C-alpha cells in the first residue's frame, strides 16, 4: 500500500532530513513511527500524501508513484486522510460543515448524502450533539475527533496521523486514542506518528524508530519494546516509558 525505496530528502542543500528510507506498509497494517523531535518522522509522513516533496528515491502510495513529475496528487489525496497535530479545522465552518466540505466539493456528493454520512461519522466519534458547534466552541479533544471524522468522511484507504495527541491536554488524549484504536481494529491502513507508546503496544503491527532522519529500528511491538537492539532506541524508550 505504501512503499518507500531509498527515499532521501534535503531542506535546502545542507539539511539532510530523510536518509535512505526503506519502508513497506501493507494494506490493513498499523505502523507507529516514533523518535525524538527533529528526527524526521513528521516529514516522513507528510511525504506520503505529497505535502512534502523529496529529491531522491521512490515512494509509491496506493499505486501512485510520487516521484513521478506528473503524479496525480489530488486523486491520491482523496484516498489518503491526514490528521494534523494542530487539528486545522476550518474555523468559519461548523463541525458538520467541516466534515462534509470535501465530500461535497471533491467527491461530488449531494449535500443530503454528505450530511447523512457526516452525521453518522460525528456520532461515531462521540460528537452527535456537537455537530452545529464551531471549532472555537469545542475542546481540543473534540476538535481532533472532528478532524478525524473529516478525514474519514472521504472514505479514505489510508489514514495518516501526525502527532494527533501532542497538542492536547492529558485528560483529552484518551478520547482521541479510543477513536484511533477502533479505526485500527476495523482494518484501516494507518501510519501514526506519536509518542503514545501505550497505543503502539495495543494496536500497532509494527513500530518504527527514527533518529536524525534515518530509520534506526523497526519491529513488532513485543520485540520492539521487550528487547530493542540499538542503544539509541533503548535510550529513547527509557525516556518516554519511565515517566
Amino acid at each position, binding site marked *: 500500500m505504501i512503499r518507500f525505496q531509498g527515499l532521501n530528502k534535503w531542506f535546502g542543500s545542507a539539511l539532510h532530513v530523510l536518509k535512505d528510507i526503506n519502508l513497506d506498509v501493507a494494506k490493513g497494517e498499523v505502523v507507529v513511527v516514533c523518535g525524538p523531535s527533529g528526527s524526521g518522522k513528521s516529514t516522513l509522513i507528510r511525504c506520503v500524501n505529497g505535502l512534502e516533496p523529496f529529491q531522491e528515491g521512490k515512494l509509491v502510495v496506493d499505486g501512485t508513484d510520487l516521484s513521478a513529475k506528473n503524479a496525480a496528487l*489530488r486523486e491520491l489525496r482523496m484516498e*489518503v486522510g491526514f490528521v494534523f497535530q494542530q487539528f486545522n479545522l476550518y474555523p468559519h465552518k461548523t463541525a458538520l460543515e467541516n466534515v462534509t466540505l470535501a465530500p461535497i466539493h471533491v467527491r461530488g456528493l449531494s449535500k443530503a448524502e454528505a450530511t447523512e454520512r457526516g452525521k453518522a461519522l460525528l456520532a461515531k466519534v462521540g460528537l452527535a450533539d456537537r455537530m452545529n458547534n464551531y471549532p472555537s466552541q469545542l475542546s481540543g479533544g473534540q476538535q481532533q475527533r472532528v478532524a478525524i471524522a473529516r478525514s474519514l468522511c472521504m472514505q479514505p484507504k489510508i489514514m495518516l496521523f501526525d502527532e494527533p495527541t501532542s497538542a492536547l491536554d492529558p485528560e483529552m488524549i484518551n478520547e482521541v486514542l479510543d477513536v484511533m484504536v477502533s479505526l485500527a481494529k476495523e482494518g484501516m491502513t494507518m501510519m501514526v506518528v506519536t509518542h503514545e507508546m501505550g497505543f503502539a503496544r495495543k494496536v500497532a503491527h509494527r513500530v518504527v524508530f527514527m533518529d536524525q532522519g534515518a530509520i534506526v529500528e523497526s519491529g513488532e511491538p513485543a520485540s520492539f519494546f521487550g528487547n530493542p537492539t540499538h542503544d539509541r532506541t533503548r535510550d529513547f524508550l527509557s525516556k518516554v516509558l519511565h515517566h
Partner: protein
Amino acid sequence: MFWFQVERLLNYWPILLKGLGMTISLSLLSLLVGCVIGLLFGIIRAGRIRWLSALTGLYIDLFRGTPFLVQVFICFFILPTVGIELSAFSAGVIALSNLSACFIGEIIASGIKAVPKGQSEAALSSGLRYSQQLRLVILPQALRIVRPSLVGQFILLVKDSSVISAIGIMDLTRSGWMIVQNIPNGLLVFGVVGIGYFIICYPMIFVARRMERRQQTSIL
C-alpha cells in the same frame, strides 16, 4: 453678514445635493470595480506564480507611489493623445477604480498570507483544487481578518475622490468651488462640503469600529 451668507448658501442646496450625489456614485462605482480587480490582484500577489506576483506588485507600487492627481491627469489628458478619448466621469472612475484596486489588492494579499498555513494544508490534503481552497477555506478567513482595514481604505478612497474635481467633474468639492465664487466665505462653504463627506464616511467609520470590536471579542 454671516446669516445673510447662510441664507444665500441655502439657495445653492440643489447644487450641493447634486455634488453629493456625484461623489457618492463616483465613489461607489469605483469601489465596486476596485474590489473586483483588487480581489484578483490580492490573489495574484499572494499566489505561487512568482513572476506574475512580482509584476502585479510593481504595478501596484507604481500607483501607490505616485500622487493621485497625476494619475487623474494622465487618464484625462494623456490617454486621449494615444487615441483613448474619455469623458471626465469615465476618466475619474477609471483612475479611482485603479487606485482602489491597488490598495485593496495589497490588503487582501496580506489577509491571505495571514491565514495559518495549516488551513491550506488541510484543504490540500482533502483533495480540494487550488481554486476551491481559495474560495471555500482561505478567502472567507482572509476577508474576515482584513475587513476593518478594508473599510478604513474605503473611507480614504471616498475622500480621495475629491481630487477628481480637478478635471471638471461636478462632485461635492467642485460644487464648493463654484459656490465660493458667489459667497465669499470659504470657511462656511467648505465647512458644509466637509460635512457632506462626513455624512458619507461616518456610517462607514461606525461600521468599521463595530467590526473591530466584534473581531476582538470573537473567539476565532
